[in-house]
């Protein structure tokens, strides 16, 4: 008997997955609590989909452990799927069926018997009510993406795992998807784990995120935490060379920017200290800004740094 709340929806500890000699996942850990919205972020090939396939019981871990509602997915896949729903990318659907048949019959595979109203409500939610009677083979990629979401909502799961759900969606549809997921969490306590290679599209939606690079975890935490230490001071001086020497002499870590300005860590020194230091060094401060990077920029910086660190 499954009692909701007994186990976290997703628990991953030291997970590794190899395909031959290639390590697709290496030492990945993750915990998604009930009602959380968590993103897996990383460039293509970083291991996001592999992690989701392990969670879906489609692949066996090579090392470590993955549990969904406390169950081992590969051995207990059917039990896991009573509470979780997965939608992989690109959306694979049955082209000969209509949208309505798709949602109704797939729900019935698990033994559920959703009524016509429930099926139509799911289609309405994703904006496909008008196309309910049309065959899937006539659908655009974006419509398939939305239908994949609709089919995964019936019967209502406790955990929804979406692989690249924003792919092929126009900006408006991305906004709608965010609204739908937030509403489902609000109304039904839905837990969501989604993946994206574009942080921009999910950054504002998720509570926490796991950044993966070449199968290894790079960051785990709230998106805002990604910005910690990423804030910089940008200053310009009348003589950049003298300014650089003065700051370095005071033990400040300085980087030269492409536009000729200098970049230093956010807490390195105040405006007054900077002006005084440069005066003493024989030049004058021209400008001083605290620069807060976007999530995307912060992520890119981390990815670059990670790549440079790798042998």
């Amino acid at each position, binding site marked *: 008997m499954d009692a909701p709340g007994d186990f976290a929806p997703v628990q991953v500890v030291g997970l590794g997955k190899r*395909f031959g000699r290639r390590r697709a996942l290496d030492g990945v850990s993750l915990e998604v609590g009930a009602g959380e919205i968590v993103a897996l972020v990383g460039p293509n090939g970083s291991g996001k989909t*592999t992690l989701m*396939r392990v969670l*879906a*019981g*489609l*692949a*066996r871990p090579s090392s470590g452990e993955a549990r969904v509602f406390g169950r081992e997915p*590969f051995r207990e*896949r*059917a*039990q896991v*799927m*009573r509470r979780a*729903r*997965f*939608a*992989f990318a*690109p959306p*694979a*659907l*049955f082209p*000969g*069926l209509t949208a309505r*048949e798709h949602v109704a*019959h*797939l729900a*019935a*595979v*698990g*033994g559920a018997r959703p009524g016509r109203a429930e099926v139509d409500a799911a289609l309405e939610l994703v904006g496909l009510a008008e196309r309910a009677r049309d065959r899937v083979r006539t659908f655009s990629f974006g419509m398939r993406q939305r239908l994949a979401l609709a089919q*995964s909502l019936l019967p209502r799961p406790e955990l929804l795992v979406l692989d690249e759900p924003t792919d092929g969606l126009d900006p408006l549809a991305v906004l709608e998807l965010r609204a739908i997921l937030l509403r489902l969490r609000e109304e039904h306590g839905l837990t969501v784990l989604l993946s994206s290679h574009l942080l921009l599209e999910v950054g504002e939606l998720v509570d926490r995120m796991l950044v993966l690079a070449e199968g290894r975890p790079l960051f785990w935490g709230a998106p805002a935490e990604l910005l910690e230490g990423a804030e910089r001071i940008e200053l310009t001086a009348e003589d950049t060379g003298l300014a650089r020497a003065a700051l370095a002499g005071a033990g400040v870590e300085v980087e030269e920017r492409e536009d000729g300005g200098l970049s230093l860590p956010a807490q390195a020194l105040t405006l007054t200290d900077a002006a005084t230091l440069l005066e003493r060094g024989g030049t004058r401060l021209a400008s001083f800004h605290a620069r807060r990077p976007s999530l995307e920029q912060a992520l890119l910086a981390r990815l670059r740094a990670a790549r440079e660190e790798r042998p």
Partner: protein
Amino acid sequence: MTLRLEGLRLWRSRQPALALGAVAFFLALMLLGFYTYAQSRTGGSAEFRYTYENRSYFNGLTFALYAFYFGFVLVLPIFAATEGGAQLAGDTGGGTLALLLSRPVSKARLFATKFALAAGYTAALVGAFLALALTVGLLLVGWGDLDLYPGVLQMTDRPQHLTQSEGLARFALAWPLASVGLLAPLAFSFLVSVWTRSAVNAVGTAVALYLVMYVVAEVHFFQDLRPLLFTSYLTFWRELFREEVDWPTLARDGAKLLAFTLLFLALAFRRFRRREEA
């Protein structure tokens, strides 16, 4: 419920219409060939031979039986292999297997449902073939008793005579037995299907291997291999078209085919339940 979904998918695919079209085309060809053969072998001035082949035994039942025999070894197994090969490999390649496995359904149920559906479809195709062959035969070739002589088709090793009603009753029995016979190539294609990740590869490989085994079973040189090949027993239902049916032999040959079927299914399922869908 899985069966309803799978059934609807099959119904909406082009497969049944394509198969029926092929069966109709094949029967039209057989009809043409049958008339040509009858004309050239019995209508002309053939040299004298101690033979019992003459115009009188060419009739609707003979046509239906010969058409079905050829269709059974050459056409129906290919459709069975196509259906079987497309089931798991098609879903794997198309990504829809992950869609199905994302539902609370065991691999055992999914596998069993797919095989049951494919078996039902094959049986329906066998029934359609027989019905069409008999209709065409009785309407366009003619009524009459079923006389069989050992010939190149090797339907029997001694002359047989069945009245028309007896013949029709044997055709009715041939439907379930021939359907059981086709389970072996179907199960074999399932076995191929779980080792491949594309429907085209699965169907191509299953059909090619079937043809190789069929040819090997038909070559005297390989006669020692015959007991090991399911293709040797596929046409076990021919035993029905005897004045006195040898039921024990029929049952034993049917059991051999069933053994092959279950062995292929066991091996296929073993692979399916243990493999990763990565």
